[in-house]
């Protein structure tokens, strides 16, 4: 063991293990993800900005890391917490350890992750801090205490510009119908899914003004996933509201299809006057069943969110209905406008990691877009 590490939670518990990745410390919210594959996709999902992620599958790193599994330009997790870190056996791949080191992200291995998850399940998402020390200080109560103090003083997520950090520069990919994407922390596979289906995707930074977006004359708009609390980003929420207003004003005659994913779904929910709230310990995994309330069909979805749109708060005159619901806890998984092609999903139709069952969401969206184009 070259470096020891301790993960402390605000409840006072300390979890010792071996450090890997970068030799830095970290703090933030501690959440867990139950997907059995896709650690790199998870690590590089911008929605995890500000969070330390516990992976419940015990063996992590088995097949290394590689470009195609990166969901963004870098890993965003504050730290990875694993039971066992493995080295890769596959050619042309880079060890997870080296990947994280390259990007300055620390990790801790050797933790009884199941015990940790049971604690998070019972207490709800907790703040935590990861500290690294030389091996001879492993299990030092003083270090653990320091880490607990750090966890408790860790600033709440809302105080950090998580979305702006994760959002990228303006860029354009693919060719076809014009899809404007408000990048509140987009996962690359959303772009791939659209491009593969014949879209020209222009990615706008989260700070872009609605005027800027609309002046590109998009055929459709996507508001992507992203990190943090939707209530903590009023300016971006305002942009989303203006984009939504534009679509509502254009109405059925000249429709502007809008697709909201995850944070995008929550922002659109807030834009129509609904409230959002925190789930006890979020939804993070690749196995969440969701019922499509229109068809009755149940689909298995990939999810990663702490917040939800509160169903009871959806204004009755908003024109929006709940279109999907989580089978486990009944939370809102989708909204749809009664007359216009505006649909939102709390889950990740792009998977990565997780099932590809929900890619038809992109087909549906682009079909709406093409209808809108044809109607012009």
């Amino acid at each position: 063991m070259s470096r020891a590490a301790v993960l402390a939670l605000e409840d006072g518990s300390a979890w010792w293990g071996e450090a890997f990745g970068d030799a830095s410390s970290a703090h933030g919210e501690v959440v867990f993800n139950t997907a059995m594959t896709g650690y790199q996709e998870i690590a590089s999902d911008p929605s995890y900005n500000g969070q330390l992620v516990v992976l419940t599958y015990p063996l992590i790193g088995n097949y290394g890391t590689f470009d195609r599994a990166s969901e963004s330009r870098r890993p965003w997790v504050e730290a990875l917490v694993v039971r066992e870190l493995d080295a890769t056996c596959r050619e042309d791949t880079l060890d997870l350890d080296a990947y994280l080191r390259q990007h300055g992200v620390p990790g801790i291995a050797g933790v009884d992750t199941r015990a940790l998850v049971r604690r998070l399940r019972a207490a709800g998402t907790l703040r935590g801090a990861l500290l690294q020390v030389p091996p001879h200080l492993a299990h030092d109560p003083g270090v653990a205490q320091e880490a607990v103090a750090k966890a408790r003083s860790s600033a709440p997520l809302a105080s950090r510009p998580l979305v702006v950090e994760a959002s990228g520069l303006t860029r354009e990919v693919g060719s076809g119908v014009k899809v404007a994407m408000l990048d509140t922390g987009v996962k690359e596979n959303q772009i791939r899914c659209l491009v593969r289906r014949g879209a020209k995707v222009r990615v706008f930074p989260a700070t872009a003004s609605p005027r800027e977006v609309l002046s590109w004359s998009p055929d459709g708009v996507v508001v992507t996933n992203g990190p943090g609390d939707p209530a903590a980003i009023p300016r971006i929420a305002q942009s989303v509201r203006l984009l939504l207003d534009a679509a509502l004003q254009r109405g059925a005659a000249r429709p502007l299809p809008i697709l909201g994913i995850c944070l995008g779904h929550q922002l659109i929910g807030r834009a129509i006057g609904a409230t959002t709230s925190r789930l006890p310990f979020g939804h993070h995994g690749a196995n969440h069943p969701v019922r499509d309330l229109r068809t009755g069909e149940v689909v298995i979805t990939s999810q990663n969110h702490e917040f939800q749109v509160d169903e009871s708060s959806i204004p009755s005159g908003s024109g929006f209905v709940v279109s999907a619901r989580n089978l486990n806890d009944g939370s809102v998984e989708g909204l749809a406008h009664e007359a216009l092609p505006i649909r939102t999903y709390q889950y990740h139709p792009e998977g990565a990691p997780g099932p590809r069952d929900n890619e038809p969401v992109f087909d549906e969206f682009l079909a709406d877009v093409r209808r809108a184009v044809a109607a012009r």
Partner: protein
Amino acid sequence: MRTQVVLLIGSGPIVIGQAAEFDYAGTQACRALREEGVRTVLVNSNPATIMTDDGVADVTYLEPLTVDVLERIIARERPDGLLPTFGGQTGLNLAVQLAEAGVLERYAVRLLGTPLAAIHQAEDREAFKRLLVSIGEPVPESAGVRSVAEALAFADRVGYPLVVRPAYTLGGTGGGFATDRAELERAAARGIAASPIGQALVERSLVGWKEIEYEVMRDGGDTCITVCNMENVDPMGVHTGDSIVVAPSQTLTDKEYQMLRSAALRIIRALGIEGGCNVQFALHPDRSPSADPEAQVPYYVIEVNPRVSRSSALASKATGYPIARVAAKIAIGRRLAEIPNAVTKRTSAAFEPALDYVVVKIPRWPFDKFPGADRTLGTQMKATGEVMAIDRTFEAALQKALRSLEVKGQGLLWESPAWVDLTDPAAFVARHLSPAATDDRLWRLFAALRRGASVDDVHAATRVDRWFLRKMAGIVRFAEDELQGKTPTPDLLRRAKRLGFADSDVATLAGMLPADVRRLRAQWGIRPVYKMVDTCAAEFEAVTPYFYSTYEQENEAAPLPGEKAVIIGSGPIRIGQGIEFDCCCVQAASALRARGVAPIMVNSNPETVSTDFDASARLYFDPLDEESIASVLENETGGVPGAEAPCLVQFGGQTALNVAERIAPIGGAIAGTSADAIGLAEDRRRFHDLADALGIPQPPGGTAASLSEALAVAREVGYPVLVRPSYVLGGRGMEIVYGPDDLERYFHAALEAGTGRVLVDKYLRGKEVEVDAVSDGTDTLVAGIMEHIERAGVHSGDSYAVYPAQNLLPAERARIVELTARIAKALPVKGLLNIQFIVEQGNRGAAPPENPLRIWVLEVNPRSSRTVPFLTKVTGVPLVALAVRVSLGSTLAAEGYARADGIWPETGLVALKAPVFSMAKLLDVDTYLGPEMKSTGEVMGVDRSFAPALWKSLVAAGLAPAPSGEVLVTVADKDKEEVVPIIEGLHWLGYDLVATRGTAALIRSLGIGVREVGKLSEGNDEILRVIRSGKCAAVVNTPTLGKTVDRDGFLIRRAAVEGRVPCLTSLDTALAVVTALRASAVTYDVAPLVAYRAAAVRVAGE
């Protein structure tokens, strides 16, 4: 229309490729359907199943699984739905036959679960290929062939290597690989012959590709989920049933995982299955994960099982998701989202389990029984059972699975004597490793790595993925560098336990005793904790009582409150210790529950009912060795003195019995027959002394530590003698020896095998009789006396047994009951007892004065036996429940089962237990019956008299001769006299007789016509053509004396097995068959088991 009555088809006898997993699935299905208010009618020919226990289905038929029987049941019960998908390939084949015969239409029975078209599409390779091509799924190039010439033409087009599989068979029986023309000729001929429709598939071989399986569920609303995926450690080329398998996959990226998952869902949708399905893929092994986002790793779809399967049983146990239960509910129209998740109670069945542990399955092969068999693993499955282990590291899961195999002495460090001299790694790899795996491949891999072979070299030789090899290399390095010759420290020991090293291996490496290691662990507080298998990686609170051990921080299994008892399970299914013992364990759990005692099950077998999460109050899925049981006991008592968790060791077969004497030293207590009493019965020398003291007659004989001693004993008692090692397991190493030369050969072999002492007993050519009894130490109740059809010398597990005994005099019967009671009292027994007797009838010599009836005690087993489930079913005496109650302190008198005459009254019912063999799967194994057990399963035939009961058992066992045709008779000279009534009977029945010279002469001397054929040893293979002609109704063949090479007989018997011709190697069986045929038993009744029992009671009451 709502389904109200469902007919469920069981899978019949346990054979290789179709085993206990179907009892597990069928039992779950019955329970699930009854929960839904559906009346369930079950038919199965296998009495050693939980599903056929009273109370599981609404109506249970123990009848042969034939179209005729099923039609009669359908006519009687008028089910509106037929559910065949829980009966393995047997069930599906019957469904197809019933549909084709118009039965389903005639009685308006709907086929539930899997549509007929899907059964065809999954089984007929061409139809399968067309379907997959139509949905864009890749299939390997292939051609259906009906002749060798067609196969060769295909090979000319696509080249080699190729693989041949027959259509419509169990576990791929009869296929094979071909790397050149000659091999293809052989494999194609074999495959075509093995297929009931004369069709085989020749296809591109994908040997060395990754083999990945998905378990998929779909409901009538088209909602689909995958329960889990599994990765074979042995890549393509080894049947998945013979592969070491891990769950979930370990080397697949999320892209690959999802690509195959999506394909599996497309396939179940295309097949229109409503229920469960298993899809197997081959995935390219060395494609690097490219930067190209659209790049796809090549894969092929290999096989689809449109039903629950061995893999789905494994997946259920690996994830906690009850596939069979859910599939049954879907079959009657329920949707996944409506079915509650029985583990979390709060979520539904519409989700995909998340595992937070690693599961390793290792097959259990029967080669310890068949040392001469071909041990190469290929497309034909050869394993009889399997073990599973769960842990948080791959290394520990693998090592625990190894411990669970219970192959004596074959732990992690084992090496074949044949390898020891070869220390050079490159030479070892070249000599002992190849893509063609053998059953000992895992040990070969360890041996190569131990010699310093690199992961890359071993990978190149075997195609086993580097990830698995590197883990194994890590185990080897840890053993060599850290443990070998070192004094353990707390840190070292903790790390060793995390990697799964057994105390005994640590002890061996460190030069200590296992007890020392345990003491150090206790001193340093290094104990396993138990974690829950909860389907959801702890995301939701779960209520399941399903745990595994691991060396980590948090223990989730606090001692179970209240009164409780630990049932030691029976481990993997093997020849000699089959599903019967698992049945007894499950019955014991129910009996404990009924008494308000919480049953705690320990077992390592993923196939069976005992490891179902609701079979007991708590399940520890762990090995059945001393270390593991000690840890479980410590966990349950919490180290608190006075806290009690007594162990029940009499139900789990020899596995449980073997740990009996270790229970007390590890601080446990046995409920029931004490360890000392068990030892007294098991240790033949001790038992001999006891028997002498009690005046219980045993066959004359003695023990011998040297050849000269053995020869002396044999001379004294006279040949033939029965020889065996002093501790016998299922007839292991037992042989009848006819002279000094044979004895010498046997003795040398026994010494080589390290047997030590050998028992030499007079071989008595009498009638073998067996009893199962229950005793409280004072009173004893014999549930029934069974008589073996075959004379002593054929292993009891391979004998036909009839209840009640048909040929005993009242005095003999009384004597047997009396001897049983005397032995039970003397040991003493508190619980079950099985005794085998020899009754030497018709011996004209003077009887010894102390044994006037010439009844000898052959063997005493103070535990549940193979026949307990059978006898329980036919007598209605709840043997296991009584044994449990007695073990808990009750008496037979208190339970109302004490009888003055000591035996449960026999009635008008007659039942036959018939052995079933898996010889078609095991090439090079001789099929003749002897003292060494060979059968893998059993069936039962029950009726109101002997002949129809026997006939039913023959039909159920697949041994019923065709009504007309030729019968080949070729018997050893010693049997010529005895075969006469059989020949006369066959002639009377109208069969045409075919025989070799000696037997033909005998037949002619009886004035009966015969066609004489030449002997194989004379270079004439006409005899084999007779067997394969399709007109051969049966073969009667007896082996020549001793174990000297009997090449002709061997080839004849093998040809019969492979040509599916009933082969009778015991004249007793042959005579019984003739008798049954002559009694026109072919026309028999079909009725539920309870009807036979009720009728029988009426008879008894008259």
